[in-house]
């Protein structure tokens, strides 16, 4: 056993990193906590970026995760606007600002970076949406564009399209799948989402690939689809997923195949832990490694990792949760709705625009999804938590 830690370093000052710092204090840790954040801003919440910030309902200030006085109260040394650039596992140091910072325990909470469209780096009018600076820039460009083309109809693209329509901005949404978010929520719910977006006059280009993002050498001018169709636009949002922010860990010896690989206690190497979007850990209940890019996982996993860093952690086996707000529809899901082979509505109905559905794999329930049905969904969560048999869930 290594001795109890005196110095804990957290890399990443966002949802996971700050929750870990808070949890360490709540769990009684009174040694040094240093949090390193690459962004210049105090840690803020990302889900509102595509909702209240893009819509203009909120100012950026409202996104801050902790009120400023909390940092002093917690006694955490938060260094912003500076990135960790290397990790030496054997020497127990991280490189920050050209100096080696020693730790007894390290938490990696560096999240993910948005994928960009190849060849568009530096091209004006082409946006991604991950940071508050991205959101502010995208909002400004979208408001003055005659039409916004959103490439990718996953959670982010679908949500951004909905918010833009709320602002009256014409939107074209392009995705190779037959319906929005199909990979995440399956064909039945995806079809309903397509209907919802069509009702709000989104120009849906589904089953469509993008051949090229076209430009005049300085600014984007359009998007060329695989079938040759040209979509004229001065504003493109690229929402084609994200990759774990692990480049700074190259050469550290950690397993970096799709995020930082961890055991069931969120441990990546002796005294090195990971949490949030960047972490891939062994989920004992699932019997496999998973990585979850959802907001509540960042919090829950950070709390679990904090306990593990203090030597008190059990295995981390959450029921993943995600929500998305599109128009007046709140979609919420527990468990795993992706890759299920069975689907059934168990209460309400799609025609009434309120329902709860179960997702199964083989004979077991693996996920539940609520469409404008938060209370009913919370009750149905038990079906996933207990992994009840498909026939019992559907008979109930």
């Amino acid at each position, binding site marked *: 056993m290594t001795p109890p830690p005196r110095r804990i370093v957290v890399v990443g000052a966002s949802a996971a990193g700050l929750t870990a710092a808070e949890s360490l204090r709540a769990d009684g840790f009174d040694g040094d906590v240093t949090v390193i954040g690459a962004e210049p801003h105090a840690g803020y919440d990302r889900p509102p970026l595509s909702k209240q910030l893009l819509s203009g309902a909120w100012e950026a200030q409202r996104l801050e995760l902790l009120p400023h006085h909390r940092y002093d109260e917690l006694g955490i040394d938060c260094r912003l606007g500076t990135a960790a650039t290397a990790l030496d596992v054997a020497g127990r140091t991280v490189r920050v600002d050209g100096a080696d910072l020693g730790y007894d325990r390290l938490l990696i909470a560096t999240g993910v970076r948005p994928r960009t469209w190849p060849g568009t780096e530096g091209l004006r009018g082409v946006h991604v949406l991950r940071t508050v600076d991205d959101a502010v820039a995208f909002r400004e460009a979208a408001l003055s564009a005659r039409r916004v083309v959103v490439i990718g109809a996953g959670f982010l693209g679908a949500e951004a399209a909905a918010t833009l329509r709320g602002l009256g901005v014409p939107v074209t949404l392009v995705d190779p799948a037959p319906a929005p978010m199909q990979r995440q929520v399956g064909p039945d719910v995806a079809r309903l989402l397509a209907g919802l977006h069509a009702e709000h006059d989104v120009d849906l280009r589904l089953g469509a690939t993008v051949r090229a993002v076209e430009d005049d050498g300085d600014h984007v001018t359009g998007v060329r689809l695989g079938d040759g169709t040209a979509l004229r636009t001065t504003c493109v949002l690229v929402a084609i997923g994200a990759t774990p922010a692990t480049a700074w860990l190259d050469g550290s010896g950690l397993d970096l195949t799709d995020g930082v690989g961890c055991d069931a206690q969120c441990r990546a190497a002796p005294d090195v832990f990971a949490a949030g979007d960047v972490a891939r850990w062994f989920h004992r209940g699932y019997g496999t490694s998973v990585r979850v890019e959802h907001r509540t996982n960042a919090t829950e996993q950070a709390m679990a990792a904090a306990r593990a860093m203090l030597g008190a952690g059990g295995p981390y086996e959450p029921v993943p949760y995600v929500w998305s707000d599109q128009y007046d529809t709140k979609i919420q899901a527990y468990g795993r709705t992706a890759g299920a082979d069975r689907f059934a509505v168990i209460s309400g109905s799609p025609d009434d625009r309120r329902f709860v559905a179960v997702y199964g794999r083989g004979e077991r329930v693996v996920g539940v999804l609520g469409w404008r049905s*938060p209370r009913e969904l919370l009750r149905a969560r038990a079906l996933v938590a207990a992994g009840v048999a498909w026939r019992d869930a559907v008979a109930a």
Partner: protein
Amino acid sequence: MKITVEIDRCVGGGQCVMAAPDVFDQDDDGLAVLLDPDPPAGLADDVQLAARLCPARAIVVEA
């Protein structure tokens, strides 16, 4: 203990209800309903957990 919920932040996932069911409930739209703004001290840990789990940071707890 004094609890407030900034309801316009609430995203309706009910993490608070799971953590402290005697203190929080949800309405039909999922928005948190504060059942007891000054719960007994024995519930302090549950309430602190709810505040930390809340993905919208909508729950404020004062000692």
